[in-house]
């Protein structure tokens, strides 16, 4: 101990404080306050472990580069599969960091403190899921125009691809949050997590990559995009609640 024992009388330092029983409502944080605290915490943790944080993006970069090399850099072949490869790369990057979404917080007791907070657990889960999306999918979304160049994606397909990723990746994060919450009570969940997530991810991938394929064939991609948007709207409402319920079960 550097500091000496607190002098006697240090424990009740400001006994003129309003008693804890009165006025404590004023001190409680609301939805915005808790979200800000959680976002700030996650950003700090991200910065402290920035080499870990870069892993999903590097994986996606690796997948895209290796595909381009594996297909021999042939322009025709690459352009045909470009959208599907980009979609897969983003999906795998999200899957890689899914297990850590709630596991660390479960192991060190943070989730217990979340449950005791004066805001619904579902709200904190939603904020945490937003961070997952913002740190894994968003950087890749911004890099997509560059990666698309690497794969010779026809320029007219890029807006459709960007739109499908913008709608699809938050949906992937939300579905992933439910799966991560379901497996948070288990010691090791790697394979189970992937097995549970894949069937949920398939429709998102089908409609996401499908919208680009449709536009490549001269069809209207709007239908597939609208289905993604509808899925996102439903998941925004239900996924945090489902994940919160799963966490409650896992912790009891």
């Amino acid at each position: 101990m550097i500091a000496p024992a607190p002098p006697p009388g240090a424990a009740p330092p400001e006994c003129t404080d309003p008693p804890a029983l009165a006025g404590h409502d004023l001190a409680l944080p609301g939805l915005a306050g808790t979200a800000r605290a959680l976002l700030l915490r996650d950003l700090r943790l991200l910065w402290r472990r920035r080499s870990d944080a870069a892993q999903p993006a590097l994986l996606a970069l690796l997948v895209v580069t290796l595909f381009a090399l594996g297909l021999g850099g042939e322009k025709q072949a690459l352009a045909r599969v470009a959208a599907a490869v980009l979609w897969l790369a983003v999906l795998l990057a999200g899957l890689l960091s899914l297990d850590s979404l709630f596991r660390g917080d479960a192991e060190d007791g943070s989730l217990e403190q979340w449950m005791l907070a004066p805001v619904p657990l579902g709200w904190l889960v939603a904020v945490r899921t937003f961070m997952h999306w913002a740190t894994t999918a968003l950087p890749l979304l911004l890099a997509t125009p560059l990666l698309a160049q690497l794969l010779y994606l026809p320029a007219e397909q890029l807006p459709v691809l960007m739109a499908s990723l913008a709608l699809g990746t938050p949906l992937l994060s939300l579905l992933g949050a439910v799966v991560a919450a379901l497996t948070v009570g288990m010691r090791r969940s790697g394979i189970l997590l992937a097995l549970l997530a894949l069937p949920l991810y398939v429709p998102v991938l089908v409609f996401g990559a499908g919208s680009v394929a449709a536009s490549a064939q001269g069809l209207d991609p709007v239908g597939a995009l609208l289905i993604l948007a509808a899925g996102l709207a439903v998941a925004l409402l239900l996924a945090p609640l489902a994940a919160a319920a799963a966490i409650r079960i896992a912790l009891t």
Partner: protein
Amino acid sequence: MTSTPASAPPLLQSRALRFSRNDEPVFGPLDFAVDAGEALLVQGDNGAGKTTLLRVLAGLLRADEGEIELHGRRADAAHRARAIAYLGHLPGFKADLSALENLDFLCGLQGRRPGQSTEHALAIVGLAGYEDALARQLSAGQKKRLSLARLWLSPAPLWLLDEPYANLDLDGIELVNRMVQAHLGEGGASLVTTHGAYAAPPVRTRMLILEKAA
């Protein structure tokens, strides 16, 4: 010590509270009350259900039967969040954040007692100078002290302390007692689980002795 008017409902009231895990009774039925300005010492052997009782009261576990009332009203989640601060076995600190950052986050999540600064709370628990130390660098006892600082900053009137004396040195045990005493002096209340080997805080206490269910 503030004395509550006789008519005021107790801060915490438990009525026929019972909990069982996988059809094995853990404790109960329990009837007890804690008034403002009072501490309830929960004693019992390992496995007697002390931790489980506190987790049920905090709302982390659901009781099978019985009612929990706070300020005479049935406890719901919002009510609990306002009234209860829980110190459990897992402190909930992120290893890669500093002591100060951890406290700031938990206060941002659960609220802060008006007029209290994080640095001051660290000084009270004897962690002055450790503001920027990462939680992973703190010893078990220092982490416990950090938890106590979090508790001190909480605006909740009811403290649920699960083994607050564990890992602490003699000076730390004295610190817990002083903190409980000061908190009760401000009209709060506290539940403290112990094995019974430590000195209790010099305050108005009730005892609840849990025995292992047969």
